[in-house]
Structures are given as C-alpha cells and as structure tokens.
C-alpha cells in the first residue's frame, strides 16, 4: 500500500539557516504518527511542508502521490485537515462558530458554488463530533482557548480529510481541555481510521493510539519507528538535551521524568 506522505531527503533553508535537513519518512495509511522534539526542532515546519504551505528547498515531498506545493496543491490540501498551533485572531470579524467551521468545506465546494444542504449537515456533524453543537451560533470571539482549539479541529474535520495534521493540539490548554482534546484525537483515529500526524514537544501528549514516533532535533530526524523503539531514555535524552527517564506502568502507559526537573 502506498504511503500517504512520502518525504525523501527533504530540506528547508531559510535565510541561510537550515530549518529542516535530509528528512526521509513515510506515513502509512490509517497510522497515527507523533512527531516529537524540543522547541526549534523543525516540527511545525515539517507539518507545514506536508500541507504544502512551505515548499522544500531540497528533496521531494509527496502527499497522496502528488506534490502538495505544486500546481494542483489546492486540490490536495482540500483532502488534508490542518490544525495550526496558533489560532487565527480575526480581530473584528463578526463570525459564528458554525461559519468558522464551514470554512473547512469551502475548498471542496469550489469557486462560485454555494454550500449545499449536505455540506451544512457535514458542518453540523463536525461540530457535534467535537462537542460544540451548543455553541454553534456563538460569536467566535467569546470562546475560551479550549473551545477555539475544538473549533479548529471541527473545521479540519468538516473537510472530511484523508489526512489530519495537528500542530501542538493541546499545548496551551488547561489540564481538563488537554484531556478532552487528546481523547478526541484518540477516538477519531479509533473510529474512523483516519491517518493522523501530530506534532508535540510535550511527551505526555503523545496519544496512546500512536503507532509511529518521529523524534526530531535541530532540524533533523534523530529516530523514527514504533514507540517501544523510539521512546527510550537515550533517544529522548539526546533529543531534549537533558536526562529523560521513561517508565512503564502495569497498564502499559509510559511516563516521562526529568530527574532534577519538573517533568
């Protein structure tokens, strides 16, 4: 089976600085991949390269067998749900939550066409999936951080994507909202078999459903493979530049500690 995402020696050079270098990886259909690493490792850039928002300066990137930054990139991006790390701040835009989620349909609906009843139904389903039905008609400016994050995820789901890219989906949320968002991601993968790539610098945010981990540091891939091969003391310590100890509880859950730190 062809990989959903294929990167071959991909690199991004910006103002003579190597943001990414020599990245080669495959994302299999139906997999859940976590990209981890410290701040500045190039994780967000990698995700944006996968979504065609950044064109690599070297190497090749293919999503669904095509170049996402190429001439047909807009058609490929319509199949990719992207949840950015920072929520857009539409300062004065009077927009309801339902309208913000509906933006996810626009690429699929196409130019000069209105939203059909089926499209509106898909938007309602996406809102229900993230538990925002009650807030559908609320002004987006009134939402909390967690609710805005769920709105972003709902917008990506409204695309009915074949690939979901999530950038630090729980990083800036309170513990309860973090749990809700991570549970939502796990249920999306479990129920729909959607291919998910999730970026996080917080090790405890790696979903249990995750079957592949890519460990990044300084713009390169340090290790990639199954969690048991990659989530190891020596790999994580090298990536984060400090001692990281991984322990496993009886229920198979991993816990990460930084002796002498707060981890």
């Amino acid at each position, binding site marked *: 089976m062809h990989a959903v995402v294929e990167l071959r020696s991909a690199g991004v050079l910006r103002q003579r600085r190597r943001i990414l270098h020599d990245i080669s990886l495959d994302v299999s259909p139906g997999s859940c991949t976590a990209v981890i690493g410290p701040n500045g490792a190039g994780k967000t850039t990698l995700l944006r390269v996968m979504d065609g928002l950044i064109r690599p300066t070297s190497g090749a990137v293919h999503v669904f067998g095509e170049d996402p930054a190429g001439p047909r990139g807009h058609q490929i991006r319509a199949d990719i749900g992207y949840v950015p790390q920072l929520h857009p701040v539409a300062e004065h*835009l009077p927009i309801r939550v339902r*309208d913000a989620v509906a*933006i996810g349909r626009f690429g699929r609906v196409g130019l000069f066409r209105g939203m059909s009843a089926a499209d509106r139904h898909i938007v309602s389903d996406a809102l229900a999936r993230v538990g925002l039905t009650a807030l559908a008609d609320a002004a987006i400016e009134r939402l909390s951080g967690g609710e805005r994050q769920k709105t972003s995820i709902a917008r990506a789901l409204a695309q009915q994507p074949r690939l979901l890219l999530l950038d630090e989906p729980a990083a800036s949320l309170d513990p309860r909202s973090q749990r809700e968002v991570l549970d939502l991601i796990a249920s999306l993968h479990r129920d729909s078999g959607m291919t998910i790539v999730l970026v996080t610098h917080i090790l405890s945010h790696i979903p249990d459903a995750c079957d592949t981990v890519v460990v990044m540091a300084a713009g390169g891939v340090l290790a990639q493979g199954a969690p048991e091969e990659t989530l190891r003391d020596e790999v994580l310590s090298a990536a984060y530049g400090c001692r990281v100890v991984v322990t496993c509880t009886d229920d198979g859950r991993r816990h990460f500690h930084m002796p002498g730190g707060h981890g």
Partner: protein
Amino acid sequence: MDLFAYSFMVRAFIAAALAGAVCGVVGVWVVLLNLPFISVAMAHAAFAGAVFGVLLGVHPLLAAVVCCTLSALAVGPLADRARMSANASLSVVFSLVLGAAFMGIGFIRGPKTEVLNYLWGNILTVSPGHVQLLAVVAAVIGVFLAACRKEILAVLYDREIARSVGIREGGIFYLLLTLTGIAVALNIGTVGGLLIFSLLTTTPLAARQVTRSLPAMYAVSAAFGTAACFIGLAVSFWWSVPTGASIIIASGAIFGICLMVSSLRRNSR
C-alpha cells in the same frame, strides 16, 4: 432651498450614494484585513497617476486609476515575495508613489491646481462620465462579492487557513487589494484623497459595533457610507461648508452613535 433643483446636485447625490456604498463595502475588507494604510497609499498612488496624466496629456482620472491598479497589484506579491506584512509592503509602495508624485509636480509648469484637486476632491464638480465609472466599479465589486463570498470570508478569517483548506487565497487577496485601490482612485474625486481614509475605516467600524454577521456588516457599512455622504452633501449645501469635511464629520457622528448603542446594549445584558 431645494437640494435637487440643480443638475450638479442630482449628480452629486448619485455619486454620493455610489461612493458611500462602495467605500462602505471595501472598507469592511480594509478594516478586517487590518490595512487602513491602504487608503492613504492608494490615494497618493492616484495623485501620482493624476500628476503624470497631466504631464503626458492623458486624462488625469484614467491615469490615476491605472497607477492605483498597478500599485495595488504590486502590494500583495511584494509582501508574499519579501515575506513581510501587507502593511510593510504598502509603506514601500507609498514611499515610491509619493516620490514619483513630487518628482512629477516638479515638472509641471504653471499652476498646479488641477492635480492638487485630486488630493482634496469635490463631489459637486463630479462629471457624468465619472458617475458612470463609479457605477461600473460598484457593479464589479458587487458581482465579486456575490460570486466569491466564501473565499473572501476565508481570506478575511486567516490567509493561511484559507490556503490550507484548498482555496487559491493569493488570487482572492490580490483581487481584494486591487479592487480597493480602484475604489480609492475613483472616489478621490468625491471626498478627496486625504479624507477617504476616514470613510474607508469609520463607517465599517461603526457597522461592526451594531452587527453580528459579515453579510450584515457589509450591508450596514454600505448604508452608513451612503448616509454619511448624503448628510455631508446636504449640510454642505445648506450651510456652505466644505463637502468632503462634512461627509467625514457625518461618518464620525455615525460611529459615535453606534458606539453608544453597542455600549448600552452591553451594559443592559
């Protein structure tokens, strides 16, 4: 005195209705894209165009529209290519057109009243041809808004999100800037290049105070723009005060009233 007893007043009211509506709608884009400086930059591009129109023997209005269109077309690609904000790109374009305008003024022999009128504007002297051009631009903007309302909403929400969902946002963004530039160029003859800044920002911000959806904001902003132009024209006619200044003060008064209404609403909740 009957406001409509003179043909120039009838023409002025038609121009006011079109100018107010066009500035109201375009102003919504200006405010939501956070680009108020575009009105100043485009006004000076129009001024530069008018200067070179006079120098080259081309109709100044036509030259102003061409110069504005070219300047507006440059803003988006310049920002994207140089990886800077559209506001920074506007400041580069503004500096260039201002330099060109002053250079051109230096070459004009004799009185410079004709080109300086482009900075002040006078709705009472608007020609029938100018009114027809305003109507064409209003129609083009209306068709663009109706045909691309989804894409415009996505771009106003966030350009990167618009791109990530599969919209060709670059073309939509550049078109928004270009139509704004053309609208500014054509309305310089009505309220003037320096005062159009207020009409493009005050009425949409007033509309934002009292609306909760984008379609309502467009409609109310256009209505406020037209109302400000009508009130300004009438005040100017009855009390013999400058028209452009009256229009701007009227739009400021509308903003003040809307602010009071929205504050009262918030307090009563």
